[in-house]
């Protein structure tokens, strides 16, 4: 398709990322991009070019992200965007497989003694604008007949600081970010995440309408990471796995050709992803997992075999 051709001609893929969310898309002290979304984009580059470094990142605000994609400024959007019906239809986008299942929740200081989100009547709530968060929160409070006051701040950092300083009683955001925010609190133990998850937030990469081949490649790049984890392949053992007898693995890694041709890619595309970026579990652990500052559990993002939602269709 034309988008893929254009990307190949350019020699790199232009990915829109968040730029300010720790663990998902943010530059480190050296200016190197880090995060789950960033690694997803790298995986796509590895699939197309066999080189995970052939990707350039464009940081985008919430308002810019869709026009940037529509106008062709970026080729793929990997910026914690929730897949919704309107976005899919009215904005002319195609979302691919979810790379992070999220849901909106509430973070409160322990000392308030709040046990449930239903007790939040009259609270002041810190919200990050530009996502579905504002609307979700409004819906939740309305449906439970509670009053509230939003404090809407554009910038994640500013918002977190504001919350810790006690400007708001509650911080609402996607659960992933709540954990992240709590992790950087002056004293993380003073804060709890309330049990209610008030929305479904399947965060997925998106491409624009018009090039199904490219969409497939992006979709399967995400799936390949999940599939690899299912198959037990990771960046360290991928070379040995090339010798595996398992036909599923052989097909996956392109030892038995076919998948690559079907996508219009090199047969080693999946191998390249795993070798250069890692499987989903690795990427998760590296960026947001329990050992990182964010310290997120796998939860919904565990493999289906472990009670999560991550499930890959067969690669054949």
């Amino acid at each position, binding site marked *: 398709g034309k988008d893929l051709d254009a990307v190949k001609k350019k020699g790199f893929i232009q990915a829109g990322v968040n730029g300010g969310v*720790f663990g998902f898309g943010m530059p*480190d002290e050296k200016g190197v991009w880090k995060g789950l979304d960033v690694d997803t984009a790298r995986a796509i580059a590895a699939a197309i070019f066999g080189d995970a470094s052939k990707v350039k990142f464009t940081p985008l605000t919430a308002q810019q992200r869709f*026009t940037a994609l529509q106008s062709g400024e970026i080729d793929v959007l990997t910026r914690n965007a929730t897949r919704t019906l309107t976005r899919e239809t009215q904005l002319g986008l195609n979302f691919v497989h979810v790379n992070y299942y999220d849901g909106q929740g509430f973070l409160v200081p322990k000392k308030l003694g709040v046990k449930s989100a239903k007790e939040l009547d009259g609270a002041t709530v810190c919200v990050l604008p530009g996502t579905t968060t504002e609307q979700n929160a409004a819906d939740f409070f309305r449906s439970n007949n509670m009053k509230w006051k939003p404090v809407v701040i554009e910038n994640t950092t500013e918002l977190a600081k504001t919350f810790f300083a006690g400007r708001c009683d509650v911080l609402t955001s996607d659960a992933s970010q709540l954990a992240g925010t709590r992790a950087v609190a002056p004293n993380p133990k003073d804060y709890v995440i309330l049990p209610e998850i008030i929305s479904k937030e399947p965060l997925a990469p998106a491409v624009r309408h018009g090039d199904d081949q490219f969409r497939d490649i992006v979709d399967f790049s995400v799936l390949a990471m999940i599939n690899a984890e299912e198959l037990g392949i990771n960046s360290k053992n991928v070379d040995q796995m090339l010798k595996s007898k398992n036909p599923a693995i052989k097909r996956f890694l392109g030892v038995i050709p076919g998948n690559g041709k079907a996508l219009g890619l090199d047969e080693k595309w999946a191998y390249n992803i795993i070798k250069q970026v890692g499987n989903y579990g690795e990427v998760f652990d590296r960026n947001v997992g329990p050992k990182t500052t964010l310290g997120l559990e796998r939860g919904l993002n565990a493999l289906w075999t472990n009670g999560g939602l991550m499930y890959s269709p067969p690669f054949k």
Partner: protein
Amino acid sequence: MTDNNTSTSREYLKPPVTEVGVLGWLRENLFNNWFNSLLTILTIYSLYLVVPPLIKWAFVDSLWLSDAAACRDIDGACWSIIPANARFIFFGFFPEDQQWRPLTAMILLLALVLYSQNRRSWNRLLFPIWTAGLFVMGWLMHGGLGLPVVETAKWSGLPLTLMLSLFGMVGAYPLGVLLALGRQSRLPAIKSLCVVYIELIRGVPLISMLFMSSIMFPLFLPEGISIDKVLRAQVAIIIFTAAYIAEVVRGGLQAITKGQYEAADSLGLNYSQAMRLIILPQALKIVIPPSVGILISAFKDTSLVVIIALYDVLKTTKVTLSNPKWMGFSSEAYLFLAVLYFIFCYAMSSYSRKLEKALHTGR
């Protein structure tokens, strides 16, 4: 008067003590009536309340070169955030091994500024020197001709701030001059177009222009064509600044007497010659000080590109602050930025004041 002129020998008396010296100065400047005395005492008292704790926080109890963890244990300022993150704050995404390039470019800029700050160097050479300087700076930043190319998406931090304002000014000036000439034009259509442009742009905030460049503009272009984000913001800044320059230049044009136009006409110069050789050289010289003022605002205004996710020096600092390690030290970081901006702007504004005086007295 010499001493031998005896008829009226003039005795110079010392003035009463209350008029001169420290006492005189104090009386004259601080305590010349009860109201001023009260004011003085109140001011000194409030300074006493504010300044010592501030000094304690900023200097006595502070850390300058430590890691983030050490900072959590002190009461004072944690200036360490700056040196620890200096690379990213100043140069952002610019590849580390190429970092010398923006550094050289900035030093070059500084040298150019220092050189042209002296009015004696305002001669025919100045323009080619600046043109060459800007080209070299562009080359250093972008690469090519032997240097690896660094695309604009990676330009960030202080160089981006400087480039946006500098090229904003350089780009806006010709446009502004054209608009000013257009606004003075006798042709009604041209005049109204320019008036509409100038008033429209001056009527809206810069961030709406930036929104336009970042959200709306991509939709204006034909399918498949896209313009770099930095360039779009740069264009928005140019379009915006040009309107203000136009008004300043118009002031300069109005200061040129009708006689100059007539003398040019009667020599037989045509419109463009008269403008180029007679009117603009005079008008532009008059408006140098207010132009510096516009440069200052342009420099300050580039900080608004944070709102459209460009990594100028304010944004790189904010990114540093979103790193959990350094999250708590925003006051220090903001103060540092404030000082940085202050130094640049103050230098420019005091220079423009000096210039204004110099141009006012001399021809």
